[in-house]
Protein backbone atom coordinates (compact mmCIF):
# COMPACT_ATOMS: atom_id res chain seq x y z
CA UNK A 1 0.00 0.00 0.00
CA UNK A 2 2.66 2.45 1.09
CA UNK A 3 4.83 1.39 -1.82
CA UNK A 4 1.97 2.02 -4.24
CA UNK A 5 1.44 5.48 -2.82
CA UNK A 6 5.12 6.21 -3.12
CA UNK A 7 5.18 5.01 -6.71
CA UNK A 8 2.19 7.15 -7.56
CA UNK A 9 3.90 10.12 -5.94
CA UNK A 10 7.00 9.58 -8.06
CA UNK A 11 4.88 9.38 -11.19
CA UNK A 12 3.06 12.56 -10.23
CA UNK A 13 6.37 14.31 -9.60
CA UNK A 14 7.64 13.15 -12.98
CA UNK A 15 4.58 14.56 -14.68
CA UNK A 16 4.97 17.82 -12.77
CA UNK A 17 8.62 18.08 -13.68
CA UNK A 18 8.02 17.56 -17.37
CA UNK A 19 5.05 19.94 -17.26
CA UNK A 20 7.28 22.54 -15.62
CA UNK A 21 9.88 22.12 -18.34
CA UNK A 22 7.22 22.51 -21.03
CA UNK A 23 5.93 25.61 -19.24
CA UNK A 24 9.41 27.11 -19.24
CA UNK A 25 9.42 26.48 -22.97
CA UNK A 26 6.13 28.22 -23.71
CA UNK A 27 6.16 31.14 -21.27
CA UNK A 28 6.86 34.39 -23.10
CA UNK A 29 7.78 36.25 -19.92
CA UNK A 30 11.33 35.24 -19.15
CA UNK A 31 10.95 35.73 -15.40
CA UNK A 32 8.11 33.22 -15.44
CA UNK A 33 10.30 30.85 -17.41
CA UNK A 34 13.02 31.22 -14.80
CA UNK A 35 10.51 30.47 -12.05
CA UNK A 36 9.53 27.33 -13.91
CA UNK A 37 13.22 26.44 -14.14
CA UNK A 38 13.56 26.84 -10.40
CA UNK A 39 10.55 24.53 -9.96
CA UNK A 40 12.14 21.92 -12.16
CA UNK A 41 15.41 21.96 -10.29
CA UNK A 42 13.54 21.85 -6.98
CA UNK A 43 11.77 18.72 -8.13
CA UNK A 44 15.05 17.33 -9.46
CA UNK A 45 16.52 17.80 -5.99
CA UNK A 46 13.55 15.92 -4.57
CA UNK A 47 14.23 13.15 -7.07
CA UNK A 48 17.82 12.94 -5.99
CA UNK A 49 16.62 12.72 -2.41
CA UNK A 50 14.21 9.91 -3.28
CA UNK A 51 17.03 8.07 -5.07
CA UNK A 52 19.06 8.19 -1.83
CA UNK A 53 21.60 10.74 -2.98
CA UNK A 54 21.45 13.40 -0.24
CA UNK A 55 24.77 14.97 -1.25
CA UNK A 56 23.56 15.57 -4.75
CA UNK A 57 20.16 16.72 -3.53
CA UNK A 58 21.84 19.31 -1.35
CA UNK A 59 24.02 20.54 -4.21
CA UNK A 60 21.14 20.68 -6.65
CA UNK A 61 18.92 22.48 -4.15
CA UNK A 62 21.44 25.15 -3.28
CA UNK A 63 22.55 25.59 -6.89
CA UNK A 64 19.26 25.22 -8.68
CA UNK A 65 16.92 27.12 -6.49
CA UNK A 66 19.09 29.86 -5.08
CA UNK A 67 22.16 30.51 -7.17
CA UNK A 68 21.06 29.71 -10.73
CA UNK A 69 17.81 31.59 -10.24
CA UNK A 70 19.72 34.60 -8.97
CA UNK A 71 22.17 34.54 -11.88
CA UNK A 72 19.35 34.23 -14.38
CA UNK A 73 17.40 37.06 -12.78
CA UNK A 74 20.43 39.35 -12.74
CA UNK A 75 21.12 38.57 -16.39
CA UNK A 76 17.50 39.27 -17.30
CA UNK A 77 17.72 42.52 -15.36
CA UNK A 78 20.65 43.53 -17.55
CA UNK A 79 18.98 42.46 -20.81
CA UNK A 80 15.35 42.29 -21.84
CA UNK A 81 12.56 40.75 -19.83
CA UNK A 82 10.17 39.58 -22.51
CA UNK A 83 10.92 37.15 -25.27
CA UNK A 84 10.33 39.12 -28.45
CA UNK A 85 9.14 37.48 -31.64
Amino acid sequence: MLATVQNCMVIALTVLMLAGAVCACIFKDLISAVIATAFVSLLAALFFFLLHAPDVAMAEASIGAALTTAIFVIAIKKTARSEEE
Partner: protein
Amino acid sequence: MRSLIAVILLAVIGLGLALCLSDMPFGANHIATAEKAGRHYLEKAPQETGSANVVTAVVVTYRGFDTLGEVTVLFIAAIGLGMVLYRRKKQEGKPPQPASFVLQTGCCFLFPLILILGVYIFLHGHLTPGGGFQGGVIVASGFLLAYIGCADMKIRHRWFEATESLAGSAFVIAGMAGLAAGGSFLMNFMPKGNFNTLFSAGIIPIIYIAIGLKVGAELTGLIANLLERAE
Protein backbone atom coordinates in the same frame (compact mmCIF):
# COMPACT_ATOMS: atom_id res chain seq x y z
CA MET B 1 11.59 23.59 -41.22
CA ARG B 2 14.12 24.14 -38.51
CA SER B 3 11.89 22.75 -35.80
CA LEU B 4 11.03 19.78 -38.02
CA ILE B 5 14.70 18.86 -38.27
CA ALA B 6 15.00 19.38 -34.53
CA VAL B 7 12.09 17.05 -33.85
CA ILE B 8 13.51 14.35 -36.10
CA LEU B 9 16.90 14.58 -34.42
CA LEU B 10 15.26 14.47 -31.01
CA ALA B 11 13.27 11.41 -32.00
CA VAL B 12 16.49 9.66 -32.99
CA ILE B 13 18.19 10.60 -29.75
CA GLY B 14 15.18 9.59 -27.67
CA LEU B 15 14.93 6.26 -29.42
CA GLY B 16 18.61 5.62 -28.86
CA LEU B 17 18.33 6.46 -25.19
CA ALA B 18 15.28 4.26 -24.78
CA LEU B 19 17.08 1.34 -26.42
CA CYS B 20 20.06 1.84 -24.12
CA LEU B 21 17.99 2.19 -20.98
CA SER B 22 16.12 -1.01 -21.69
CA ASP B 23 19.50 -2.69 -21.39
CA MET B 24 20.12 -1.44 -17.85
CA PRO B 25 16.92 -1.98 -15.86
CA PHE B 26 16.17 0.51 -13.12
CA GLY B 27 17.28 -0.58 -9.67
CA ALA B 28 19.23 -3.61 -10.81
CA ASN B 29 22.30 -4.42 -8.80
CA HIS B 30 24.89 -3.53 -11.39
CA ILE B 31 27.78 -3.61 -8.93
CA ALA B 32 27.17 -7.11 -7.65
CA THR B 33 30.70 -8.43 -8.07
CA ALA B 34 33.59 -7.28 -5.95
CA GLU B 35 35.81 -6.02 -8.74
CA LYS B 36 33.32 -3.31 -9.70
CA ALA B 37 34.45 0.07 -8.53
CA GLY B 38 31.23 0.96 -6.69
CA ARG B 39 31.21 -2.24 -4.63
CA HIS B 40 34.86 -1.80 -3.82
CA TYR B 41 34.27 1.75 -2.60
CA LEU B 42 31.36 0.71 -0.41
CA GLU B 43 33.28 -2.10 1.23
CA LYS B 44 36.73 -0.63 1.55
CA ALA B 45 36.23 3.12 1.88
CA PRO B 46 35.76 3.27 5.67
CA GLN B 47 39.02 1.43 6.29
CA GLU B 48 41.02 2.95 3.46
CA THR B 49 40.04 6.56 3.94
CA GLY B 50 38.42 6.78 7.35
CA SER B 51 35.46 8.71 6.02
CA ALA B 52 31.93 7.71 6.99
CA ASN B 53 30.43 9.34 3.92
CA VAL B 54 31.44 7.15 1.02
CA VAL B 55 30.53 9.80 -1.53
CA THR B 56 33.00 12.14 0.14
CA ALA B 57 35.61 9.44 0.10
CA VAL B 58 35.06 8.91 -3.62
CA VAL B 59 35.04 12.61 -4.38
CA VAL B 60 38.15 13.50 -2.43
CA THR B 61 40.40 10.48 -2.47
CA TYR B 62 39.47 7.90 -5.09
CA ARG B 63 38.50 10.46 -7.68
CA GLY B 64 40.32 13.43 -6.21
CA PHE B 65 41.79 14.34 -9.56
CA ASP B 66 38.28 14.94 -10.90
CA THR B 67 37.63 17.26 -8.01
CA LEU B 68 40.76 19.22 -8.78
CA GLY B 69 39.48 19.55 -12.33
CA GLU B 70 36.03 20.58 -11.15
CA VAL B 71 37.45 23.30 -8.93
CA THR B 72 39.50 24.46 -11.90
CA VAL B 73 36.39 24.64 -14.06
CA LEU B 74 34.73 26.90 -11.54
CA PHE B 75 37.88 29.01 -11.35
CA ILE B 76 37.81 29.35 -15.13
CA ALA B 77 34.17 30.38 -15.04
CA ALA B 78 34.81 33.06 -12.42
CA ILE B 79 37.84 34.43 -14.27
CA GLY B 80 36.21 34.18 -17.67
CA LEU B 81 33.14 36.02 -16.45
CA GLY B 82 35.33 38.76 -15.05
CA MET B 83 37.13 38.94 -18.39
CA VAL B 84 34.00 39.01 -20.51
CA LEU B 85 32.43 41.73 -18.38
CA TYR B 86 35.68 43.66 -18.07
CA ARG B 87 35.40 47.43 -18.14
CA ARG B 88 32.21 47.90 -20.05
CA LYS B 89 30.20 51.02 -20.03
CA LYS B 90 28.05 51.49 -16.95
CA GLN B 91 24.35 51.18 -17.47
CA GLU B 92 22.60 54.46 -16.91
CA GLY B 93 19.27 54.46 -15.20
CA LYS B 94 17.36 55.12 -12.06
CA PRO B 95 19.15 54.13 -8.88
CA PRO B 96 17.67 50.92 -7.52
CA GLN B 97 14.96 51.05 -4.94
CA PRO B 98 16.32 50.37 -1.44
CA ALA B 99 15.17 47.25 0.32
CA SER B 100 12.46 47.50 2.92
CA PHE B 101 13.28 47.66 6.60
CA VAL B 102 12.08 44.11 7.25
CA LEU B 103 14.21 42.71 4.50
CA GLN B 104 17.31 44.60 5.61
CA THR B 105 16.97 43.48 9.19
CA GLY B 106 16.19 39.92 8.17
CA CYS B 107 19.20 39.77 5.86
CA CYS B 108 21.51 41.12 8.54
CA PHE B 109 20.16 38.54 10.95
CA LEU B 110 20.26 35.60 8.58
CA PHE B 111 23.64 36.33 6.99
CA PRO B 112 25.75 34.96 9.88
CA LEU B 113 23.40 32.00 10.27
CA ILE B 114 23.86 31.06 6.63
CA LEU B 115 27.62 31.41 6.91
CA ILE B 116 27.61 29.16 9.97
CA LEU B 117 25.50 26.61 8.13
CA GLY B 118 27.93 26.67 5.22
CA VAL B 119 30.92 26.15 7.47
CA TYR B 120 29.08 23.35 9.29
CA ILE B 121 28.33 21.65 5.99
CA PHE B 122 31.89 21.70 4.73
CA LEU B 123 33.47 20.80 8.05
CA HIS B 124 31.22 17.76 8.45
CA GLY B 125 31.62 16.66 4.85
CA HIS B 126 33.04 13.30 5.84
CA LEU B 127 30.31 12.55 8.37
CA THR B 128 27.02 13.86 6.98
CA PRO B 129 25.79 14.65 3.48
CA GLY B 130 27.37 17.71 1.99
CA GLY B 131 30.91 18.78 1.60
CA GLY B 132 33.19 21.46 0.34
CA PHE B 133 31.24 22.24 -2.74
CA GLN B 134 27.81 22.46 -1.14
CA GLY B 135 29.19 24.44 1.79
CA GLY B 136 30.87 26.87 -0.58
CA VAL B 137 27.63 27.41 -2.45
CA ILE B 138 25.82 28.09 0.82
CA VAL B 139 28.44 30.66 1.82
CA ALA B 140 28.10 32.33 -1.56
CA SER B 141 24.32 32.35 -1.16
CA GLY B 142 24.79 34.16 2.13
CA PHE B 143 26.74 36.88 0.36
CA LEU B 144 24.10 36.99 -2.35
CA LEU B 145 21.49 37.61 0.31
CA ALA B 146 23.60 40.39 1.76
CA TYR B 147 23.83 41.99 -1.68
CA ILE B 148 20.09 41.85 -2.10
CA GLY B 149 19.37 43.21 1.32
CA CYS B 150 21.84 46.08 1.41
CA ALA B 151 21.79 48.10 -1.81
CA ASP B 152 25.10 49.83 -1.18
CA MET B 153 27.12 46.86 -0.02
CA LYS B 154 30.39 46.32 -1.87
CA ILE B 155 33.06 43.77 -1.29
CA ARG B 156 36.79 44.13 -1.52
CA HIS B 157 37.42 41.99 -4.53
CA ARG B 158 41.07 41.55 -3.72
CA TRP B 159 40.34 39.67 -0.52
CA PHE B 160 38.20 37.18 -2.33
CA GLU B 161 40.75 36.74 -5.08
CA ALA B 162 43.46 36.14 -2.49
CA THR B 163 41.25 33.61 -0.69
CA GLU B 164 40.48 31.62 -3.79
CA SER B 165 44.07 31.72 -4.91
CA LEU B 166 45.39 30.54 -1.55
CA ALA B 167 42.76 27.84 -1.21
CA GLY B 168 43.47 26.52 -4.71
CA SER B 169 47.17 26.45 -4.01
CA ALA B 170 46.50 24.66 -0.74
CA PHE B 171 44.65 21.95 -2.65
CA VAL B 172 47.52 21.46 -5.08
CA ILE B 173 50.08 21.57 -2.28
CA ALA B 174 48.15 18.95 -0.32
CA GLY B 175 48.31 16.79 -3.41
CA MET B 176 52.02 17.41 -3.84
CA ALA B 177 52.59 16.56 -0.19
CA GLY B 178 51.14 13.13 -0.90
CA LEU B 179 53.60 12.82 -3.76
CA ALA B 180 56.48 13.91 -1.55
CA ALA B 181 55.46 11.51 1.21
CA GLY B 182 56.46 8.72 -1.12
CA GLY B 183 53.03 7.84 -2.39
CA SER B 184 51.17 9.36 -5.26
CA PHE B 185 49.49 12.63 -6.06
CA LEU B 186 46.61 13.46 -3.66
CA MET B 187 47.37 10.48 -1.44
CA ASN B 188 45.77 10.43 1.99
CA PHE B 189 49.00 10.51 3.96
CA MET B 190 47.73 11.73 7.32
CA PRO B 191 46.49 9.54 10.20
CA LYS B 192 42.92 8.39 9.84
CA GLY B 193 41.80 9.14 13.43
CA ASN B 194 38.71 7.69 15.08
CA PHE B 195 36.02 6.67 12.65
CA ASN B 196 32.90 8.85 12.62
CA THR B 197 34.37 11.76 14.60
CA LEU B 198 35.12 15.27 13.42
CA PHE B 199 38.89 14.91 13.50
CA SER B 200 39.26 11.89 11.31
CA ALA B 201 39.74 10.86 7.72
CA GLY B 202 43.19 12.32 7.20
CA ILE B 203 43.39 15.04 4.58
CA ILE B 204 39.71 14.93 3.62
CA PRO B 205 38.61 17.72 6.00
CA ILE B 206 41.59 19.86 4.99
CA ILE B 207 40.84 19.52 1.29
CA TYR B 208 37.16 20.13 1.93
CA ILE B 209 37.92 23.31 3.83
CA ALA B 210 40.07 24.47 0.92
CA ILE B 211 37.36 23.58 -1.59
CA GLY B 212 34.67 25.24 0.48
CA LEU B 213 36.58 28.50 0.82
CA LYS B 214 37.54 28.45 -2.84
CA VAL B 215 34.06 27.74 -4.14
CA GLY B 216 32.53 30.30 -1.81
CA ALA B 217 34.98 33.01 -2.84
CA GLU B 218 34.64 32.20 -6.53
CA LEU B 219 30.87 32.21 -6.60
CA THR B 220 30.74 35.38 -4.52
CA GLY B 221 33.12 37.09 -6.91
CA LEU B 222 31.05 35.84 -9.82
CA ILE B 223 27.84 37.29 -8.40
CA ALA B 224 29.57 40.54 -7.48
CA ASN B 225 30.90 40.87 -11.01
CA LEU B 226 27.47 40.25 -12.47
CA LEU B 227 25.89 42.79 -10.13
CA GLU B 228 28.70 45.29 -10.84
CA ARG B 229 29.34 45.52 -7.15
CA ALA B 230 32.98 44.48 -7.12
CA GLU B 231 35.68 46.72 -5.67
